[in-house]
């Protein structure tokens, strides 16, 4: 941790429109390890960056299903094997009465997996990130629109990437150190 290394470049754009066009050009130039940073989701940016669809939906679906199965099993087992009791003359296995709690536990499991699945795919929470070294990057949550290209990218070349970013309309390009 003694030597400062380059994390990448951070380029600022004025409007969502500029950012969208620039992202397309970065994608077409063949960069892989780049990202856009915006204060709100900008529509069309996923395609402009060439991102695949998120798999989060399948994860949530799986957990919701497990929640439902687990919930139904909990009720069926406790009412028939764990603690069988005749209440109001209803059969032990009154599956109709179990549907509401089954549904509830499906929703609960789905909701938890939505939030924590999102964290998992986003590698959040994290305590620090090199981009936070930039004072200007604070505007990414206010009114700034940024593209960051990582030095790890195979196409990355300090001089060329900087001119490339300026050429596609960046207002200013900042080198970010990884410390």
């Amino acid at each position, binding site marked *: 941790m003694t030597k400062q290394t380059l994390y990448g470049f951070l380029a600022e754009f004025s*409007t*969502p*429109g500029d*950012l*969208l066009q620039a992202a397309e050009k970065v994608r077409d130039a063949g960069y892989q390890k780049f*990202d*856009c*940073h915006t*204060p*709100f*989701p*900008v*529509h*069309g*940016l*996923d395609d402009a*960056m060439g*991102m695949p669809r*998120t798999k*989060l*939906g399948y994860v*949530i679906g799986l957990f*919701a299903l497990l929640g439902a199965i687990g919930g139904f099993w909990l*009720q069926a087992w*406790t*009412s028939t094997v*764990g*603690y069988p*009791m005749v*209440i109001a003359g209803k059969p032990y296995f009154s599956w109709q009465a*179990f549907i*509401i*709690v089954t*549904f*509830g*536990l499906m*929703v*609960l499991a*789905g*909701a*938890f997996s*939505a*939030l924590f*699945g*999102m964290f998992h*795919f*986003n590698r*959040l*929470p994290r*305590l620090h*990130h090199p*981009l*936070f070294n930039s004072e200007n*990057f*604070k*505007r*990414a*949550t206010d*009114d700034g629109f*940024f593209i960051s290209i990582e030095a790890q990218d195979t196409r990355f070349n300090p001089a060329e990437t900087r001119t490339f970013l300026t050429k596609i309309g960046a207002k200013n390009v900042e080198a970010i150190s990884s410390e």
Partner: protein
Amino acid sequence: MNLIKPKKQPSPDATVFSGSAPLPEPLITGKQTFASITERISAIVEGKPPKGWMIAFSFSVSILLMLLGTIGYLADEGIGIWGLNNPVGWGWAIVNFVFWVGIGHAGTLISAVLHLFRQKWRTSINRFAEAMTLFAVICALVFPTIHVGRIWMLHYVFPIPNQMEMWPNFRSPLLWDVFAVSIYFAVSILFWFTGLIPDLATLRDRAKTRARKFIFGALALGWRGSNRHWQHYELAYLVLAGLATPLVLSVHSVVSTDFATSILPGWHTTIFPPYFVAGAIFSGFAMVMTLGIIAREVFGLKDFITLKHLDKMSKIMLVTGSMVGYSYATEFFIAWYGGNGYEMFAFINRAFGPYAWAYWTMISCNVIIPQLFWFKKIRSNVKILFVLSILVNVGMWFERFVIVVSSLSRDFLPSAWAYYSPTIFDIMTFIGTFGLFFTFFLLFLRFLPMVSMTEVKGVLPAADPHYKAPEEVKEND
């Protein structure tokens, strides 16, 4: 109106505004930019609170202390301190429970259902409506919790393995209620927090003091507005909205089964679930309006919570209020058409018996008053809306009172009949929950952004990547 317009020269940019459809009115007024939105909303939680805040907060906390005192006394003495007796075993506590759960529903409707229907106007009000939901559900949960009497035995309602190998009875609507309301609370908190993350990051990036940097830094979880994150985030938010949407319908339906599955005349009706849900949304929107009007006046948010928002909320109240009125009529019709003597008696007793005063308060506030929302003049008069929104909630409280008390107080045996009145502790507990609600709500207004900055920025015209600034368009015109 001049119907025959002189033909205009087709401009090269005419396609931008082509067609006859007029441009929609802006949702957010006052020529806001992204930066001005951040500044306007963040300033509320960064600067000093307005004068009234401290007074309101101290007042709420003292009422909250009264609630805690009453609960302490109840834990020591038992629920005999309330006005409950045979035959009225459910009194104010259950009335208040249903009242508060109902209020919560509007928050979820605004945040989840309107999100799925892509109603962009929700963005200004969804954050505080969701907060209202959470705090209303907390207030609601107070009542069944203390109603069990032996509060220290409350864990029995949950399926926790224990040395007696006993399990809860999953065939009971009361247990469904435990699950429905606690799951509702959990999902609402997750949904609310997910929506807050980007705004917490904004506050983190604006933080000046060490404490703020630390607290908001921890809460924002390292959010950096990355589009690779937004993709998962947006899907998670959409799914949470999708999961919360059936809850809007299911939670109050389950609450209504507490009543509907019993055999008591006046409770044993199949109309209860939809009727309760409509009433819940009705009362919830009234509460959102009350709080929204206070917030826009006190914190100067007239550009964000505009007259247009109040207008739309009034229309929803008109619809749901009319549904509630229709349900009252249907109940009477079925009581007559069903030909059950006990049922007929229960309804005649409701309207003309000892609780007629409560019944007619309910009818005036819930059926007659919302009809005023037909008039645009009323929908655009903030002062009148404020008064009406409070009256609606008064009416909705009485609806639950009428349902719970009028049926119980006149059961099958006339010798058991009795008139129910609350004791001072019933009243103190109910008022106390308003202290609880407003303490939380005022803390929320003070420390967290009450309008979602991210979402409001997203509905500005400038947020569209294909947006052209008006100056550019005019040059071409």
